[in-house]
């Protein structure tokens, strides 16, 4: 396999206007990845699949990752004049990085037997702009896996032929793999609702005097 820089340059030439960033992987696994801009993702993916030197014909693993909003603290040494003497003082600055959802694709080549090449795409934010282009037209293996990401993370894949919930039921509202997911405590779907659960569930429903007061009627008599 060519080096990542070579692949990046070739892909940027083939798909005009595509911006590819190499994401460094600091761990010992030696698996850096490409961050592809969403507008050119399908063009880049098609190039990676069809170019004879790449031939990434096998998209093995497709998955989502949820990155929450985070604050990175940076300490810079700044020269300041304190009491007339120039000193180096630590100045902390906070940088807010907005959260996003990520789709990660692990590509291998069955023809040339190399890989993995990891590509990732990021949504604009975690609330409304969770749209990504679907790569199912390029690799059919993404079909069920992108449905799973839609189901568990709430990423909408534009261009997917059949984007429905897959593991959760259709009426389910939330996306359970998100990091800020809180399980509902009304447990409408809880198969074995015990007393403690039912007590909590009461908060979510209006009082039903004709049912809840039924015991009082009998005790008054």
């Amino acid at each position: 396999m060519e080096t990542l820089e070579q692949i990046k340059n070739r892909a940027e030439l083939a798909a005009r206007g595509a911006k590819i960033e190499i994401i460094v992987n600091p761990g010992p696994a030696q698996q850096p990845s490409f961050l592809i801009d969403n507008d050119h993702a399908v063009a880049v993916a098609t190039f990676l699949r069809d170019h004879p030197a790449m031939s990434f014909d096998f998209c093995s693993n497709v998955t989502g990752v949820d990155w929450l909003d985070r604050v990175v603290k940076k300490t810079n040494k700044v020269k300041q004049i304190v009491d007339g003497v120039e000193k180096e003082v630590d100045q902390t600055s906070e940088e807010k990085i907005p959260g996003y959802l990520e789709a990660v694709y692990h590509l291998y080549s069955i023809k040339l037997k190399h890989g993995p090449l990891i590509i990732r795409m990021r949504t604009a934010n975690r609330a409304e702009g969770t749209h990504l282009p679907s790569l199912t037209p390029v690799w059919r293996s993404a079909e069920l896996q992108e449905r799973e990401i839609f189901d568990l993370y709430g990423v909408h894949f534009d261009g997917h032929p059949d984007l429905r919930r897959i593991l959760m039921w259709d009426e389910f509202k939330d996306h359970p793999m998100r990091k800020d997911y809180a399980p509902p405590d009304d447990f409408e779907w809880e198969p074995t609702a015990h007393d403690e659960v039912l007590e909590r569930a009461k908060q979510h429903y209006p009082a039903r005097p004709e049912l809840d007061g039924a015991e009082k009627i009998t005790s008054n008599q």
Partner: protein
Amino acid sequence: MSATVQTAAPPGMTSRLDGELLEVSMGPQHPSTHGVFRMNVALEGEIVRKLKPVFGYLHRNHEQIGENTTYLGSMPYTDRLDYFCSMTNNWAYALSVEKLAGIEVPERAEYLRVILAELTRLQNHASLLGFLLSDMGAWGTPLMYAFREREKILDLFESLSGSRMMCDYMRFGGCRVDVDDAWLTRAKQIVDRFPKFLDEFEDLILQNEIVIARTQNVGELSPELAISAGITGPMLRACGVNYDIRKVDGYGIYPRFKFRVPLGDHGDTYDRLMMRALEMRESIEILKQALPQIPAGPIVNPKVKVRAFRPPVGEAYGRIEAPKGELGFYLISNGGPNPYRYRVRPPSFINLTVLEDLCLGHVVADVMVILGSIDIVMGEVDR
């Protein structure tokens, strides 16, 4: 089937069902779905015209549970993914964590892993053949023949790990308990006798005329579609695509062993069935080489922390050739005791992508045979 008696149809209805589709919901409680799995099938007469699989009956969000426990805490839980092959599930997870944290594995542990993975392959493929014949209507007998052999291997697992199916055997950087010479002798005996079972099984079943009539030219899969749809394992090789991760990645110590990768021709159900029988013979070859060679030494890397195990920040994707296909684990570490992202790449789930393509145009009785030949376990599909 030329109708001789013309029955008068009520006004507004035709007397025949030409072009009308009948929607049948197969499953979720069907003995041949290998678990809780439903297929919405649109039938024209007996011919399948549409098929939509419905997943999620066994969903328990394995991945989120994995993100909320420690790295080691997920190890026994991986047994429950594909509960036929807990050893290979353990290995795939251990391999990914070893990649993530840069851990080396001692020689003896690598040998043990290969031996146990190949034994798992033997029992998985044997029981698959039994199940598949059971789906075809050969009730009981072939399944019991296969389970007789499987039980011998599960006894080996039990004497080693304490459990027949939920072995929880591998650890990061090695294995949990060591084997003794008596165990190795028993394993050798089982491996030596296994070809006899295979010969018998092939004579009885794989040359059987009914089996051939039910499976040949049923559910053909083209290699192009198989590659694009991410099909892996024996199902991919049945289409004639030479891709075995044991050969391609050469993980563990597989490059040391001499074995062949069987390939199919047509990609139909018969080829998928034969692929399992041939792969069992190659597994026996590997076991025959590995069992006498196993060196003495430690079985776990002593440098790996058991408590407060925190891999460095980064991510890793590790994969192995599990009996059902490529089983991979994708892990992201943020330096904490739990993985930030824990993802299972389940082979049976992704192999179901082409279920509709395989079944279209076949009669409804073939759906069960095709589904059986894909070799799924719902614990892994729904996770």
